């Protein structure tokens, strides 16, 4: 792709760093269950906007880093984020056509699916005894999606990430 040189890719790295920071930040005990899936939101955004730069393999590598941050079995979140990126790629054109509210609904279902998957894997592989599946992270992520999308889209156009 010579007509489309890479530009401003540092914003992707920075946004992911911030997402990792927000994912590791301590929250008061009651709100911990409802922590939005920041890294998942960032992966959805970049796969949606730049599918030719940000694909499944990059999502997989980010998942490995997320595994070291969360202390899960290496490859668990690699799998989960690869599934996330693949789902978004399959729905890419449709998602771009949707208005923001409908996008948020789709984000809710996609992230809900990945949370069910990650919780199943945790229960199966790490013998997590108190493995309940909660709907909260997907819900808060979906509620935050329009703002995250607006902010990131503005930044992406300003920096001309491509």
């Amino acid at each position: 792709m010579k007509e489309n040189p890479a530009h401003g890719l540092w914003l992707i790295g920075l946004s992911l760093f911030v997402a990792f920071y927000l994912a590791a930040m301590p929250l008061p005990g009651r709100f911990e269950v409802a922590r939005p899936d920041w890294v998942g939101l960032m992966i959805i955004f970049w796969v949606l906007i730049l599918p030719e730069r940000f694909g499944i393999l990059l999502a997989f590598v980010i998942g490995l880093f997320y595994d070291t941050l969360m202390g899960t079995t290496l490859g668990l979140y690699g799998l989960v984020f690869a599934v996330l990126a693949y789902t978004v790629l399959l729905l890419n054109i449709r998602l771009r056509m949707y208005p923001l509210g409908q996008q948020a609904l789709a984000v809710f279902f996609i992230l809900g699916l990945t949370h069910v998957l990650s919780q199943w894997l945790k229960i199966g592989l790490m013998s997590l005894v108190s493995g309940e599946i909660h709907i909260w992270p997907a819900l808060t992520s979906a509620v935050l999606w329009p703002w995250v999308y607006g902010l990131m889209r503005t930044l992406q156009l300003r920096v001309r990430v491509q």
Partner: protein
Amino acid sequence: MPAAQTRSSIIKAIYSAGPEHGYRFAVAIAGSLLLMFLDLRFSQLDRVRQSLSYIVAPVQSLVALPRDLVQWSSETFSERNDLLDSNRTLRSQMIILQQKVQWLAILEAENGRLRHLLNATARLESEFLTAELISVDPDPFSIQVIVNRGAQDGVAVGQAVVDADGLFGLVVQVDSLSSRVALVADVNLAVPVYVNRNGMRSVVVGTGNLNSLEMEYVPDTADIKIGDTLVTSGLANRFPAGYPLAEVIAIEHDPGEPFARIRAIPLAHLGRSRTLLIVFQEEAK
């Protein structure tokens, strides 16, 4: 014309990338399944994890930064009188502790002589490494903390961690600069103990609640009272012997159950302690 070309090339890239995505997806799935299998079955992958953790480490230290700043500023800008006060209390505490240490030397010598008389083996000496808590595990379903000592300081999986008042937890995963400690309240952890008053052995398991532990398989007739201290017995060679773990706070006898329900409160300040000790125990042969 160039703009239109760019757009058409992007659209072509999106549309034509279908099967390619499928292949990449298959590669990613196969890769992560392989990694999970290797990580669960073999220990060679710990190296990979440790080198990955170098990149994640800045995030963790950044998370701890605001709290460190608050602490630093409260120490720097606190009143002179407060500092003098705390200095004075610490001094008197130190004198009391020094006096106890004098006794300890005498008792230790006497204990050694008595053990020699009884032909018992000498007690194992253990060494400590201080560690500071840097963050709490963001996963709401696991009770783990992250401390600032890792493989570079010689920490290994399976070492016990204590705080000033009792047993705190167990090192479950070691990264290069930090390691992960499961607290004794974790549901996946069980500690062999004995009752300090009469030496009765049992096992204490976590409940997932920071302020509550439970004793397993204690018969209704067992001699346990509220207020008894539970001390680690060192059986199973996992935890060092002789550290206080918990105090019994409630005993229920349910006629329908084969065993008594005994709840205990951990002596270590699981929710508050920041300075911890990692115990290096000599291998018993």
